[in-house]
């Protein structure tokens, strides 16, 4: 792996180069598994007999990976604008310009930051079933933020993007400086949201984070496969959401950071339906969890890098397009919020997702800008309260990534139309 990272914040630049490589092995024997990673194959050679013995001493008799047909596949780099054709100077200059333009903006920006990162990775996977895969891929991301200050109030807006094939996507950030600075300034003058329960409409970005945190992590089968009670609670046929709601996770999202032709166990990626019309229809599986739960692997086993074993992860998690119009969703709210963009979230029975800004909705009309709303929901209730799903589906890319079991940040994507949810808790600042 080769990585370049450029950041510019508070008029200070930092540039990092990384060259990383390694090798890992995973052994399944007698119902247990052993994983090892080292800098060189010779080191693993030394450990291998011990690993096989230790794996055999672990685990229950039935715990082994589900059988899949061997796959021999290569996925080469397929790029539009190759970042390697863009000089370091040009990249630095672009990041500096985002930063400097924010600080020079007439909206009066007190602080700005901009960052860019590209990784080019070659991953080779071989297993004893005869699978041999090679994936040569790019992951790039860019973002910038502008902070405005009014008295004690500091507020920021940001834009971020990513791609697995096109540096030009990052250049598109240049056209967003004005809107970001203007919004930061407006937010610094906006009142805070009063904590309480609201009917909310979420924009694409926020809805993408919502589906990731509200159900995506729960759908990762390794979080439930050791609990018979959880498997029952989330078994196919369980009603978890409203009839309008359909959720899926896919590796087939060309150009997207979450795009994956095959996973890190050599399983082809597919669209995995998770909830259809409110009913649980499937989960995300690795070969291990698929065997435990007598299901098919879904190509969802991903490792952050060679130093980590593959575990069940999301790829591009989506709420399927509906039929509702945004205007109708808003006009159907007496007292609520139109919530936009996200600073991240946390999943679980109670999940949290932060909004960047919101607009009050009163009597069906959009009103004043408000700030500092963090939304929280419950797996068993909030999904049922989704009563509007828009006809304007979009895949959204963000910088950063997903974290689980110490593997952070894994590139993922999300897709959604606007959605409306009744009765969501908002914690104001």
């Amino acid at each position, binding site marked *: 792996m080769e990585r370049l990272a450029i950041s510019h914040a508070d008029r200070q630049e930092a*540039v990092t180069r*990384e*060259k990383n490589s390694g090798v890992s092995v995973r052994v399944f024997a007698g119902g247990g598994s052993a994983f090892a990673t080292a800098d060189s194959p010779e080191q693993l050679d030394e450990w291998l007999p011990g690993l096989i013995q230790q794996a055999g001493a672990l685990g229950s008799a039935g715990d082994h990976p589900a059988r899949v047909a061997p796959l021999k596949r290569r996925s080469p780099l397929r790029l539009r604008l190759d970042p390697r054709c863009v000089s370091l100077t040009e990249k630095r200059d672009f990041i500096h310009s985002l930063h400097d333009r924010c600080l020079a903006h007439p909206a009066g920006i007190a602080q700005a930051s901009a960052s860019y990162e590209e990784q080019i990775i070659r991953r080779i996977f071989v297993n004893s079933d005869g699978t041999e895969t090679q994936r040569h891929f790019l992951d790039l991301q860019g973002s910038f933020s502008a902070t405005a200050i009014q008295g004690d109030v500091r507020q920021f807006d940001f834009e971020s993007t990513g791609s697995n094939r096109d540096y030009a996507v990052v250049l598109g950030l240049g056209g967003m400086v004005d809107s970001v600075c203007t919004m930061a300034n407006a937010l610094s003058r906006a009142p805070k949201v009063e904590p309480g329960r609201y009917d909310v409409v979420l924009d694409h970005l926020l809805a993408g984070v919502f589906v990731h945190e509200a159900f995506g992590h729960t759908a990762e089968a390794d979080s439930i496969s050791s609990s018979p009670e959880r498997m029952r609670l989330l078994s196919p046929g369980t009603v978890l959401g409203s009839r309008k709601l359909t959720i899926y996770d896919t590796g087939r999202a060309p150009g997207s950071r979450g795009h994956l032709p095959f996973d890190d166990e050599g399983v082809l990626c597919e669209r995995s339906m998770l909830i259809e019309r409110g009913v649980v229809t499937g989960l995300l599986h690795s070969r291990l969890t698929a065997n435990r739960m007598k299901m098919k692997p879904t190509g969802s086993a991903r490792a952050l890098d060679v*130093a980590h074993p593959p575990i069940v992860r999301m790829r591009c998690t989506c709420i399927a397009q509906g039929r509702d119009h945004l205007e109708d969703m808003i006009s159907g709210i007496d007292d609520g919020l139109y919530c936009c963009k996200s600073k991240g979230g946390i999943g679980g*029975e*109670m999940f*949290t997702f932060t909004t960047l800004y919101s607009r009050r909705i009163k009597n069906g009309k959009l009103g004043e800008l408000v700030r500092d709303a963090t939304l929280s929901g419950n797996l068993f209730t909030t999904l049922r309260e989704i009563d509007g799903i828009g006809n304007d589906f979009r895949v959204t890319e963000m910088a950063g990534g997903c974290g689980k079991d110490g593997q952070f940040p894994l590139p993922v994507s999300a897709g959604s139309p606007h959605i409306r949810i009744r009765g969501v*808790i908002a914690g104001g600042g």
Partner: protein
Amino acid sequence: MKSWIKALQKTPGEWEICRIRQNYQSLKLVNGEPAALERSDRSGHALRLVVDDGQAFAFTRDGKPDRKLLEELEEIARGGARRPLKFTAPPLTEAQNDRSTGSALIDPAELLEPARQAAEHLLKIPGVSVDVNISSDEEELSICNSAGRNSSRFRQSLGFSITADLTEPGNMLTLPRGRELTVADHHLPLQLAEELAEEVSQARQVASFNAGQHEVLFSPRALGDILVALESGLNGQAIALGRSPLAGRCGEAILNEKLTLIEDPTLPGGNRGGIFDDEGIPCLIRPLVENGIMRNTLHNLQSATLAGTESTGNGHRLQMVFGRRDLRSRPGISRSHWRIDPGAETSQQLLGNIRDGLYADILVGSFMGDLTTGNFQATLWLGWHVIRGRIAGRVKNAMVTGNIYRILGEQLLALSQERGDPRENSGLQLPSALCRDVTVAC
């Protein structure tokens, strides 16, 4: 490393090289049965170059010097914005230099039987599944720089974590406990499991709770979660740039007079304590806040250069949430280990003072707020409705919001006599804190 040093000595400007080796073994048990073993031995070099006040940073797994990489770093440094950085080599005592702690990597299987017993204790509870992780970690860091620093640091730790997942209709709760142990602590896994079992049993009973402003008793764990907002305010770079609300306030009252916060790298637990930080600067015991008055800030070499002062030994590499340290990262600014002086009353007495409020035991997500202002919004992961001093049931679907300077300022009523174990709280030794008028949304 010697060959890298020779190559760096030929470059213009100042330089720093860290050789980092991370070695771990971990054993995972699922529902009391060993299921997976992991083993890792990785090393690499982190390089920093400063030429004409421009900087470049690199990480590489190459054991031998990479001439092309060094040339690239020099080009990056020369072409970059001016960002002065002075490497230093403050004297270390003999005890601080080349000090090793512990012995060879401990086999996690030595705790297998206590781990099994702990899991079995929890598995007796209906609806509960249990994950246990035993991890033995070694970290070796050798650091040299052009100012003459040449030191090594070796850390070893044995970690035990146990997670109980409770599942019943309408209720899905994950409760973790974790602790740094020694192999001799055979009884501790079961003790942790017993504490967890008590929590799980109580958690079944759900209570209603009204949104509004309440008295809230923050447990040591919950207090540790929201202290990240204070850490952000004490950041030396944020202060030097005027971003922090604490800029220019050293010597002034910033928190309640009951509160004294000491940075103490000798506390066990966590992995940012010890002799020197990731830049080779000695870590010291020193007050950050004394009876509410701000005394010190947190600096690494970069921020110290910016502020025209010396590093305080707070140049630490990134700590992943629920993971290991990312030693490939550039040293940022973060706390080492902290302790807050205790109060006079017991936690039980503080709880007894609450007429109708909340005991916040575990909070999550406070790091997602705008920490520079001190504001936080945290989801209540585990909390209890307290009525007339007694626990009335678990509160679900709630968020706690506030500003750390007010919560630990005018809103602070009392601190408890007992403090949590820093080995269970990432090197934080904290009391419980009773606060009034805390906003709870639900």
